[in-house]
């Protein structure tokens, strides 16, 4: 049993735009690359070229279809990693104190030297955001690239999580969600950002921006006047053409 801090100085997290995520998995692989080389044990792959390849990933993209009662179905790409919850059940369930939430920025981390690989935290997380590494037998999870965001060996513009830096569609944003004036908070306010499974009471820091309404092009007929025929029939069209050409700059009118 591990305790959570009463509050954190900042609430660093991600804002993920489901309106623009094209499901390309760039974030998944960039994360795998950075976190294999950096914080904690490498993210291993077993049976890598075999019949049942299985590796550790801190971030995965799932795709869900939505079929409205009327109209065309939609496909939503849904990237998912640790949401760095304020009320993180993965921390409170940890028997060794290996899982903890940082006071200064709210990042939830696993101290691998204290992790016994019992898996309780993965079971407690309602999002399935933790994965036990099959080789190292320690729990792996998103670190919000804690070794990038403060890293003085990186140029300042690169001090953001690898997944955010690489996202081609600009669907991932990083910042302090505890500061209502931050860009990410403003974005959440403007776009109606939501908590994932709010009913779980986990108070996730990460937010999701919902897809904008789709398939509204022909809902209303305000566009009809734009297609009003200039005339009817080819001869009539030529008459219109003649008049329209006269009306052009340099024409007769």
């Amino acid at each position, binding site marked *: 049993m591990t305790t959570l801090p009463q509050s954190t100085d900042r609430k660093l997290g991600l804002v993920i735009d489901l309106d623009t995520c*094209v499901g390309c998995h760039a974030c*998944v692989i960039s994360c795998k690359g950075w976190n294999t080389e950096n914080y904690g044990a490498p993210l291993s792959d077993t049976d890598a070229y075999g019949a049942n390849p299985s590796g550790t990933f801190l971030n995965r993209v799932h795709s869900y279809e939505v079929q409205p009662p009327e109209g065309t179905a939609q496909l939503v790409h849904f990237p998912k990693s640790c949401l760095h919850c304020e009320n993180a059940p993965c921390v409170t369930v940890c028997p060794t104190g290996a899982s903890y939430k940082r006071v200064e920025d709210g990042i939830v981390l696993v101290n691998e030297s204290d992790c016994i690989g019992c898996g309780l935290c993965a079971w407690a997380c309602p999002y399935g955001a933790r994965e036990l590494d099959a080789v190292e037998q320690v729990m792996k999870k998103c670190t919000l690239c804690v070794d990038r965001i403060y*890293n003085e060996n990186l140029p300042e513009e690169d001090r953001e999580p690898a997944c955010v830096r*690489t996202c081609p569609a600009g669907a991932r944003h990083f910042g302090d969600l505890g500061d209502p004036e931050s860009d990410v908070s403003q974005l959440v306010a403007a776009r109606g950002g939501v908590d994932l499974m709010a009913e779980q009471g986990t108070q996730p820091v990460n937010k999701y921006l919902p897809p904008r309404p789709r398939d509204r092009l022909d809902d209303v007929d305000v566009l009809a006047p734009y297609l009003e025929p200039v005339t009817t029939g080819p001869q009539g069209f030529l008459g219109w*053409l003649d008049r329209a050409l006269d009306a052009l700059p340099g024409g007769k009118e």
Partner: protein
Amino acid sequence: MNQPRIDTSPKVSDEVRRTTCYMCACRCGINVHMKDGRVAYIEGNRDHPVNKGVLCAKGSAGIMQVNAPSRLRAPLKRVGPRGSGAFEEISWDEALDLAVSWLKPIRDTAPEKLAFFTGRDQSQSFTGWWAQQFGTPNFAAHGGFCSVNMAAAGIYTMGGAFWEFGQPDWDHTKLFILFGVAEDHDSNPIKMGIGEIKARGARVVGVNPIRSGYNAVADDWLGITPGTDGLLILSLVHLLLKAGKVDLDYLARFTNAPVLVNGDPKSPEHGLFLRDDDGKELVMDRASGKLAPFDQPGVRPDLAARHRRAGITHRTVFQHMAERYLDDRYAPEAVAGETGIPAKKIRALAAEIARVAFDEAITLEREWTDFRGETHKVMTGRPVSFHAMRGISAHSNGFQTARALHVLQILLGSVETPGGFRFKPPYPKPATAHPKPHCKATPGAPLDGPHLGYVQGPDDLCLTADGSPVRIDKAYTWENPMSAHGLMHMVISNAHAGDPYRIDTLFMYMANMSWNSSMNTGGVMQMLTDTDDNGDYVIPRIIYSDAYSSEMVAYADLILPDTTYLERHDCISLLDRPICEADAAADAIRWPVVQPDRDVRGFQSVLLDLGARLGLPGMVDEGGAAKYADYADYIVNHERKPGIGPLAGWRTGGDGRGAPNPRQIDRYIENGGFWVSHIPDAAAYYKPWNAAYQDWAVKLGLFDSPQPYLFQLYVEPLRRFQLAAEGHGERQPPEHLRERIKATLDPLPIWYAPFEDGHADPVEYPIHALTQRPMAMYHSWGTQNAWLRQLHGVNPLYLPTKLWQAHGFADGDWAQVSSVHGTITVPVAHMAALNENTVWTWNAIGKRKGAWALDENAPEARKGFLLNHLIHELLPARGDGLRWSNSDPVTGQAAWFDLRVKIEKVPPPDRSQPAYPPIKSPVGQGPGTLAWKVGE
């Protein structure tokens, strides 16, 4: 709290080496982080013009490619039967001696007996030059089975197409309409653009049978029936013309809409343009009422003109267009059934295009001067932009469909104007500024010119004196006169059939022809292994170069192992398939950020070595010694013409034009692997007609003189082929092709049903079948990558709700899928966001057992499958003894997406069918567990 102390500023790497990605064809800039001399981490280069720092899944997974167990290790000589995969390793000297012993006699006697085709080659200006020096007419890259319809339609219509040719004006566009794309063409720039425009609230419309990827984030999705995009586009044209929502001023000034067309059906020039004595197209000047050449200063070309000369009435192109497209054949109600798009939706899209183009027109306060010398105070834009790729072009009506899309953009006045579509240097470049094809082979001598080009009429076809094809792929023949990229998909089939002749050596690079890169995969394997009455292979010798243990390796006699992209020099050249932006010219290099740990060599260096050993002109000096030490030496010192070489940056004396600079590659490396030169603001739009742009392009060496031209709404060269089919002229098509040429080589865009509909009974085969490439994989390469194969390790056949329910499918079920050509048995899955008559799967996930260093029981080899088995390179026999290629009749593009199938539910087999026996792996199988940190 007693928090652990952690190091938040660990050392990132020893060094960053900046080069160019090659995990797909997008060619992004990458920062390769090195630790202890090894690749540790790859990220996007923020300074690079293509990707500006971002990087896709493939790019980030490059470390697993350079470590892939599938990498070939040494030259290989076949020791077992072809197709078995039994090889012995040999030295490079042995390998090159063997290749010379095969190639030298061919060159000395009959150079056409070598067929040299390169696949996903990014060095075509070099490989083409090599083939030209060798002297064979039989060279092309993979464009014929990829997207030549899009490229050729764009070049003939407006001097460029999408992707490498141009891009939407992301900064200004307000409506972006995307027609069927393979999601790696263009990978990161399209994602970046969609993200940018959605962030500011612009509307994205996707037209695609499948709502995945970019179409999943589109604000509106039109789930069109495959092969009917052209009909939808012409319906949009119909509505816009009818409503007068076209840019008449733009059409009159910058296109051939006002050019006068001969209207006498009896005339040998019927349908050709009225020209002056200098050959310039004539227009009627609306101010004076007199004929004038199109480029005469002060002329106001009249779209409504009619002119009688020598008893022949001439009308403008625009009037021909009005007559054709105002016809109710193209009314939304008339096309709704075929396209699967409700008439109301088509009207809504047309109206939204009209609204944005004309009510939301944008103006940039930039003065510019056009080619007639007229100065314009502002640049006016119609902020509607389009992008399309293989989805619309890989059909037998793809050329005309791509033409229709380009014509739609031009009618709106949205090409090369703010908010629309913008060319990237060296484009715009009209068909007339490209070379024509060359095919004259002479023993012991080079070909008479570059292989590939743009024909202007029957005189430019590659035919022998008796009218038979000169080229093994039958490019530039009456079967497909405008085959600007050749027909790689017909090479093996034609060589096997001896039609038009037999060859001696097939030499291929990076093309997985015995698997996912061929139609009729099983048939191709058989052709590659077939023997004649003497027991000799029908295709006597096959040389293949690849970096990896692909399926094709087993079918070659000699393997020249290539390096990975991180171990080699390359140039991404303005002479080739460049990486320019709409605002800048750019080119780039690759350089060996790590050295190969195997006995492999960069293919281009090997080709230069081979060229020197064969004594090919340009590759040896006067004394017969090798002129270039390797490809890097060639990149720096080769000049295509004086002052113009593979790389434009840092030449001695300046950028673009200048003598070779021995430090050029160093300068590229210092600059992050690329060079960029920005276009002046006043030259940034209206490029085909903008005097400032034309001057800039000449200065940079893109052209030798200004080349202003008109957009070709009406493509006169197409009409010249029709005239021949109607009996005019000396060079006549064979009788069996006359009617098809008349019908399909129309100088104005038309739509006709895909050819497959003509032989696969739509009642018996009611379902369209497609493939897509996932964003995280590139062709067959992704599967050897331990990270990427975990993203896409299986490829079910996705079925729409209607078919899923009608056949009573449930999760885990399998289906037998049949076309007129073949049958496969495959796993199925349900997908609702799909055209109701279309099924699809991911391309090239299925693998042959034994290839790519995978376990024979890998899901890719067990449950993965190819649709290729259902698609034939030929149309079914008609009893006329002729072999009709399953290709577009204009360009010869492989009609992959014409495929029609039927399905039935079957009991699950233990693996996908057809199943082929394993091939012996030359590299063994990859390791089980991967867990490492580089540098520890």
